[in-house]
């Protein structure tokens, strides 16, 4: 084989590798180039930690005992051990007007859990906080505003 033939063969062999490279790089950048950018998986525009949060609302499930004391209901009761998954589950339930259905589902799990034996009812709530003052002022963890989205009993 001559040098020219070897060179030509080498260049030809590189074409598929080059094509694959161009396609993968373009696909990686595609979600960010779209208008508006689109988050998906595994191709993403990686929007985490980029949003400006002034005084955001958080959507949670709160438990109450017979005396009216509040008990925080953990992510496992709402979705699974992943807190972000639980947060999204409550947010979507509120957004899609399914808070009542979520409340009933969580109540069923709470009824079967020994950790929440004193909880007799649940509420799906939206609470507004200022993240800048939540940890830095004495009453920062008191909601600025609060709305009840659903309420249900825990039946045992």
């Amino acid at each position, binding site marked *: 084989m001559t040098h020219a033939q070897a060179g030509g063969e080498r260049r030809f062999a590189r074409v598929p590798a080059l094509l694959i490279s161009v396609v993968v790089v373009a696909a990686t950048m595609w979600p960010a180039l779209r208008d508006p950018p689109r988050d998906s998986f595994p191709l993403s525009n990686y929007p985490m930690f980029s949003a400006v949060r002034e005084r955001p609302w958080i959507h949670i499930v709160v438990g109450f005992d017979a005396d009216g004391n509040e008990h925080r209901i953990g992510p496992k009761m709402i979705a699974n051990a992943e807190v972000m998954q639980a947060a999204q589950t409550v947010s979507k339930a509120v957004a899609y007007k399914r808070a009542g259905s979520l409340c009933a589902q969580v109540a069923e799990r709470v009824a079967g859990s020994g950790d929440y034996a004193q909880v007799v009812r649940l509420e799906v709530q939206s609470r507004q906080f200022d993240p800048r003052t939540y*940890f830095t002022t004495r009453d920062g*963890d008191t909601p600025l505003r609060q709305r009840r989205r659903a309420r249900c009993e825990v039946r045992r």
Partner: protein
Amino acid sequence: MSAVWFVPAPSLRLAVVRVLICSFAVVWLLGFGPLLLSGLWSPAERFEPIGVASLLSAPLAPALGVGAWLLTLIAGIAALLGWRFRLIGPMFALGLLWVTTYRNCWGMIFHSENLLVMHTLILAMLPASDAWSLDARRASRSALPEARSDPHWRYGWGLRLMAAVTVLAYLLAGVAKLRNAGPAWLDGDVLLSQVAWDNLRKIELGDLHSPIGATLSAYPAVFIPLAWTSMILELGAPLALFGRRVAWVWAVGMWAFHVGVLLIMAISFMYPLSGVAFAPLFAVERPVEALAARLRRRRPNSALTRLLPRGSEPL
């Protein structure tokens, strides 16, 4: 282009990257197994398919999900060992793509496994079992082993592509911050509110939060250098492709960034934290060769010594 992209690399380098990525993926599949499997029983109304799962209009039967996870785990172990990699590598990559995508179909898109999946998909297209593998051992025993030059660009281009995908992910994260918050992101206030918001959300949702992040919320000045550093690391990520020394500085900086995120937000991006995400940027075969040489001198007959490679020779 040739000098930048088709850089010759030893087959062992690609093989070490295969071992690192597949090891991480197998450990991830096992560690996240309970979470992945419990998610299969989520109520159908929460199903929001994305990516390759967009083909589905309703969740799969949980038994199919369990089967996909188990087959992917088995394929992952085979890919790690480099057994029939030309067939098993793509099977494993597609299985991992499916399992991780399905996990993201319940309302929350996580960003912690994107690079792992992209790297695995690229790896599946490469001759990653030409060294340190059962395939290589079988080839060396055959009567007519295939003659291959080593180092060669066929072992280098895929590593460049994986490295490019890694730096692009960080570049896009930096661009998203500038696009969504503008230059205000650099004054530290947006970062402070993100850290405080994430921690308060965990408290309100009854989960563990980071006391360090909560304490730092009282010191806004701290977040200005943190914001600048993270932005420089993210927007400067492509520079890591142009020189190993820059790559070292960048990778260590990015790793420290993820340690910071873990400490102040209790969010773990395990793939970059493990260092495996940055492996395609480096000559990762050298520490393996050094370890193998050292063990051969000290314990020539140990099982671990036999498992480690001899230069670019087979398993």
